[in-house]
């Protein structure tokens, strides 16, 4: 939805720039003029509309009519500054072409000294739909669900790592970002420090990116966190180490990826698909489906498999788990690899929705924390519930509060919940100080 609006606006801006640019050339030496292009949107293209009469009236007895040419261009030389009334004769519009707003066929335009004034008459059906509050609510709920599911992927990993090791990982946002960065690099072929290889399709790129994320998770545990556990580093010290790691990685990404936001090459300007009042792009439906399947699989694995049961045992009581023969270090390694893959997947899906940026993960880190805290620190299912609540709250609350303050609302709710129910929605009371 947002990308479509952005694409639309970009097209509009481009059209405007071209119009001004073209208009400035011939009339520059001849004094003031009023001009415009009449173009009718047909699918994605703009088709010029010839033969339409535009009348310009104004001071000094100017009363001239121009007819649009094959490029849809019309020009009236007014040769003086002042305010002119520009009227489009709707009867001369060809069949099937209408003004976007039929009442706006007459415009008052000020023309400055020496100016070639562009005037825009918008043709075609209105792209802005007036939605009822309920339709908006349905649309926002769908978007909130999508966002909540993406947060959930990252939050479950964060929560499992916290549960098994006690580490509050402030570098988790960077695990989210790296998934999207790997996918972008692989799908464009622009790998940093390596020769260009032309790029892969999105799906193989994402699959390889996930494997690389698994490697990142493995490296995190093997090279940093396991040695620190061996040294007996305290939990707060470890938390501050993760902050340092987060800062380092974030600015390392900025160094290699630069500060631009980029789209995956295969997924630019997607068409919307409607389900009743809900309109999302195809990748949005796809990413929701993927997130649901992966989350279900994660829950099943935690419930049914040996390593899943072992994970829950370690989260519950590491000493007891170790005493009953569970290899705690191996479980933690599995959790790191799995958690990093989940976070990487969240990053890939987030990149589909809003583009790839060096700090996309850091920007949702606090929301992930909010989700995990809402659900109860250290409980994987709580993280899932908390994420959906946060995602829905953030988007649906924009019905009433300005969009730029939506994260404020979510973080505010986090503080309120801590006042009322500090252990979170699914947490157990004794976990908290």
């Amino acid at each position: 939805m947002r990308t479509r609006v952005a694409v639309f606006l970009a097209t509009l801006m481009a059209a405007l720039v071209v119009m001004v640019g073209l208009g400035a050339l011939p009339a520059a030496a001849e004094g003031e003029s009023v001009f415009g292009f009449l173009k009718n949107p047909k699918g994605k293209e703009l088709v010029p509309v010839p033969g339409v009469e535009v009348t310009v009236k104004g001071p000094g007895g100017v009363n001239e009519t121009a007819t649009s040419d094959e490029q849809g261009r019309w020009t009236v030389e007014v040769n003086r500054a002042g305010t002119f009334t520009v009227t489009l004769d709707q009867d001369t519009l060809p069949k099937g072409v209408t003004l976007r707003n039929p009442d706006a066929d007459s415009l008052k335009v000020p023309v400055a000294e020496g100016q070639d004034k562009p005037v825009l008459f918008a043709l075609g059906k209105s792209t802005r739909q007036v939605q009822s509050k309920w339709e908006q609510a349905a649309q926002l709920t769908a978007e909130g669900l999508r966002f909540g599911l993406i947060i959930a992927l990252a939050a479950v990993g964060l929560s499992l790592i916290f549960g098994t090791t006690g580490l509050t990982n402030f570098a988790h946002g960077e695990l989210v970002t790296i998934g999207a960065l790997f996918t972008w690099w692989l799908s464009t072929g622009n790998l940093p420090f390596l020769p260009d290889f032309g790029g892969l399709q999105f799906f193989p790129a994402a699959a390889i990116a996930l494997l690389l994320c698994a490697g990142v998770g493995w490296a995190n545990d093997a090279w940093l966190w396991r040695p620190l556990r061996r040294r007996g580093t305290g939990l707060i010290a470890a938390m501050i180490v993760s902050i340092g790691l987060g800062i380092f990685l974030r600015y390392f990404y900025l160094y290699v990826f630069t500060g631009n936001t980029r789209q995956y090459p295969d997924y630019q300007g997607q068409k919307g698909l409607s389900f009743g009042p809900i309109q999302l792009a195809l990748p949005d439906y796809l990413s929701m489906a993927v997130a649901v399947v992966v989350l279900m699989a994660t829950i099943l694995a935690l419930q049914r498999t040996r390593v899943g049961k072992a994970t829950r045992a370690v989260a519950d009581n590491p000493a007891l788990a170790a005493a009953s023969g569970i290899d705690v270090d191996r479980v933690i390694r599995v959790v790191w690899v799995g958690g990093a893959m989940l976070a990487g997947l969240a990053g890939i899906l987030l990149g589909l929705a809003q583009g790839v940026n060096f700090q996309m993960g850091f920007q949702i880190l606090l929301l992930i924390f909010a989700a995990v805290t809402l659900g109860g620190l250290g409980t994987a299912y709580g993280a899932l519930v908390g994420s959906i609540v946060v995602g829905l709250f953030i988007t649906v609350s924009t019905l009433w509060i300005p969009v730029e303050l939506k994260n404020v609302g979510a973080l505010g709710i986090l503080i309120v919940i801590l006042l009322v129910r500090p252990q979170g929605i699914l947490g157990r009371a004794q976990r908290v100080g």
Partner: protein
Amino acid sequence: MDWTRIFANALEASIGLQAVVFALAAIGLNVHFGYTGLLNFGQSGFLAVAAYGMAVTVQTFDLSLWLGIAIGLAAAVLLALLLGIPTLRLRADYLAIVTIAAAEIIRLTVRSVTFEETFGGSDGRQSFSADFYALNPFSEGEYNIGRFGFNERQMWVLTVGWILVGLSCLVVFLLMRSPWGRVLKAIREDEDAVRSLGKNVYAYKMQSLIIGGVLGCLGGFIYGLGQNSIQPDIFGTDTTFFAYTVLILGGAARVAGPVVGAVIFWVVLSLTDNVLNEAIDAGYISSSVINNTQVGQFRFMLVGLLLMLLMIFRPQGIFGDRREIALDAR
């Protein structure tokens, strides 16, 4: 490579505005984290409410600067109360998450378009420090020793700033050798033991949060007065983490730790920035490896690495005592 300029810049950075601001922010954090063991990750929020309290009073409501400073101080106390009430009974990591969230709430609110008329959106507020410079005893001119020096405005704000740093250190020193300070340190070591001795731990933690917040918020005032302008994004989470790096570098739970940390921190950053920039300009480093914009990013990478390595290999910093650092969550 112009080594005189590089060293003059480093010397200026060692006592410059940023060093003062971060010394004050870290002194506040020292009361929170170093002495009481509170993980306040929202220190930038305290700087923000103070600076905005001052700037908004003067620029938006056209009132006196001194009233603005009073309002900024009151806002810092209020913020400490608001943060403390829900979180001080909770575990350390909860406090960390809530304080960082609160600081972000403040930043997002003051930069929003909705409140642009009051807070100035992402441009922030400017030109509010005239009353402060009206008191400037330094006459106009440059005060230089060789290529190292400041103009009269910088001289004035730095003088006030370093006096505040000195007074804050004195306050911390006196507080921490009092019986009250010993209770704080006992809370850091074992909260339950203190509670069993009949002390109201919650009240002590709240007092610590308020005092540390007020000391830290002085940094917000000095920054605003020194720059004569503030923007919301100065008060992001990175500011808090820089202050933590400064504190841990100098040594937590030591009176002079934050000051030494701030001086060394900014000298190191100034040296790396200037040496890299000069080396790039002189062609010693190819611009395909790193260009002048990327030097700023390199600085952040360096800070991140420094924070990690310090915490792993020397959590007590330069002056601290390892036994006095709160490293285990309770």
